[in-house]
């Protein structure tokens, strides 16, 4: 008996348990609404279905959130990722649109390299502001969040740039071994980041910097260099996400591309169990978080929830995830008995929770 109980506690106590439960509940609700929701069929040699859409559309968010996880692990935050998405997409599309042959692979690769390079510069700018000059991350990256959006509009001259490039389109809507190409890229990047941070000491060093930058410096870690690095990595991830988002619709929209993605990314990181205070990060949790956010958006469309109430629906689910995931809140729920002190606020919270 006791071993079974221990096992159950181990499973329910796992960081990923509650986020995964929420993800499954969302998928189950969709299936109840439309039984064929989970069905995946083979169409024109690639997989087709709502599940595939969710996975494909969450690819850019997974990338941005990966970079954000590392930044948050150092105790920072990067608000500029949405603007970097817009800038990188705009640069790539502008370059391709000016090519005589938009389908030439060389031209597309040059465009990607150019846009990626500019994104790295933007990341370095953030890194310098935070690590060298010592501006608070939220302010330092806010600068680029605002300025970068303007830069993207400047690059596109305020217009939507449409491209007709087969190779570029592949990044957003192509397929590799029946799977969406975007998710293959996202998984590859995830794997690289995971290996680099968890199979070497890098991850621990990043967490050390987030835990206490000064202490880690005294212990021999070049904390400034690490801080600088995570902002560059974050911008690099955002750049690739920008390619995916613009390739998805074969056009760069300086106003709309990557708008508010920074907030979604922060949410994904938090849902995944990473504390905003820094010092720890969980890549697997971040990915589940990104999947939850995309599933939520897709659910609104798939279940045709009235747009006026859609935001409220999302808010309720997000609150539910955050609460249920907090050990303090769960402990309080378990302890709740009629005789406990101050039951009123707890009961209130419980009630809000039920409809979700």
């Amino acid at each position, binding site marked *: 008996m006791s071993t079974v109980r221990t096992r159950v506690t181990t499973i329910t106590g796992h960081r990923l348990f509650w986020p995964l439960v929420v993800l499954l509940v969302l998928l189950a609700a969709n299936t109840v609404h*439309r039984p*064929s*929701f989970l069905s995946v069929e083979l*169409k*024109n040699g690639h997989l*087709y*279905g*709502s599940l595939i*859409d969710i996975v494909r*559309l969450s690819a850019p968010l997974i990338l941005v959130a990966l970079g954000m996880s590392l930044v948050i692990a150092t105790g920072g935050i990067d608000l500029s990722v949405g603007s970097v998405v817009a800038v990188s997409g705009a640069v790539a599309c502008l370059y391709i649109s000016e090519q005589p042959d938009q389908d030439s692979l060389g031209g597309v690769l040059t465009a990607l390299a150019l846009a990626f390079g500019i994104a790295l510069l933007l990341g370095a700018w953030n890194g310098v502001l935070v690590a060298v000059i010592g501006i608070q991350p939220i302010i330092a990256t806010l600068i680029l969040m605002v300025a970068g959006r303007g830069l993207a*509009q400047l690059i596109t*001259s*305020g*217009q*939507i740039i*449409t491209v007709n490039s087969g190779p570029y389109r592949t990044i957003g*809507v192509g397929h590799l071994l029946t799977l969406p190409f975007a998710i293959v890229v996202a998984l590859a990047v995830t794997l690289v980041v995971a290996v680099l941070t968890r199979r070497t000491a890098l991850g621990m060093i990043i967490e050390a910097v987030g835990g206490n930058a000064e202490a880690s410096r005294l212990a021999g870690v070049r904390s400034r260099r690490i801080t600088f690095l995570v902002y560059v990595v974050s911008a690099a991830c955002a750049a690739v996400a920008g390619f995916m*988002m613009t390739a*998805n*619709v*074969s*056009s760069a*929209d300086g*106003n*709309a*591309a990557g708008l508010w993605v920074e907030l979604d990314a922060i949410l994904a990181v938090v849902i995944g169990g990473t504390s905003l205070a820094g010092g720890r990060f969980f890549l697997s949790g971040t990915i589940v978080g990104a999947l939850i956010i995309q599933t939520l*958006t*897709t659910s*609104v*469309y*798939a*279940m*045709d929830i009235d*747009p*006026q109430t*859609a935001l409220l629906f999302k808010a309720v689910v997000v609150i539910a995830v955050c609460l249920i995931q907090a050990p303090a809140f769960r402990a309080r729920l378990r302890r709740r008995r009629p005789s406990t002190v101050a039951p009123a606020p707890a009961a209130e919270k419980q009630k809000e929770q039920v409809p979700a």
Partner: protein
Amino acid sequence: MVHIRTTITRRGLGALLAAGLLATGLSGCGNSDTGGDAGGTDKIVLGFSQVGAESGWRTANTNSIKEAAGAAGIELKFDDAQQKQENQIKAIRNFIQQKVDVIAFSPVVESGWDTVLKEARDAKIPVILTDRSVDSADKTLYQTFIGSDFVKEGRLSGEWLVEQTRSATGPVNIVELQGTTGSAPANDRRKGFAEAIAANPNLKVVASQSGDFTRAGGKQVMEQFLKANPKIDVLFAHNDDMGLGALEAITAAGKVPGKDITIITIDAVKDGMQALADGKFNFIAECSPLLGPQLMDLVKKVHAGESVPTRVETEETTFTVEQAKAALPTRKY
């Protein structure tokens, strides 16, 4: 004003630069030397403050106004507010100081205009609103409002569909891609369309979601519509961009846009017109930015003291595939 200006000129450039704020406030004044004094010349002077240059639509709007002013022999003082209300208020105050004959502007936001509009009224300068309206309770603060009628755009789209489906015996399933939730174009286009299709009980909107007026939004929503509704006959998108995004989703689902699914959109921007000419869209109700000539007529009328209607609709049309093919080569935006 003239006194202040001469004083500053006497004290020289240094003083002007020192008074940084003042300098920006008066920078427009210098221009008025070139012939803006009311009554001094017989040319009408129009001060126009534009929202910004956020889209191809807006750029076409600006060009139309500039060209029409030139053609009508009206002197145009053009100001770009760069999406900021404070810039626009500053520009209007500058126009008042310069004593232009008529002020026209496209309000960045709906509210907060009463004070500056009263200043214009006190200076006896008539004001015309273009493209967007203001929510002032006092309707005497401006002469007229010229702009698109979003309800009508939705209604024209719906009426075309009713006409096309007259012979249909079974139900016609429509999906709708709404604009940004709560925005005036989204609300009004939806309303107009719903009113029009009520004429035929076979026409039914089976799903309606917001695609935020963007291509990515339109595509993402359409992907789910296609999976949730096995039979979609018609797509009504509140702007071209969402329709263009939806095209990709429809193609990916193995259907032929324009044939398997009839597509109706609003706006008629260049990419949308191209899709229509290619037969991927079936119908576009125009939301025209080319209100310049109409605006100049109104400017002349209010300057001459003639009465004008308080609401003037932009001259707009609708396009079918054939009309789009004919119109595309000479399209300005």
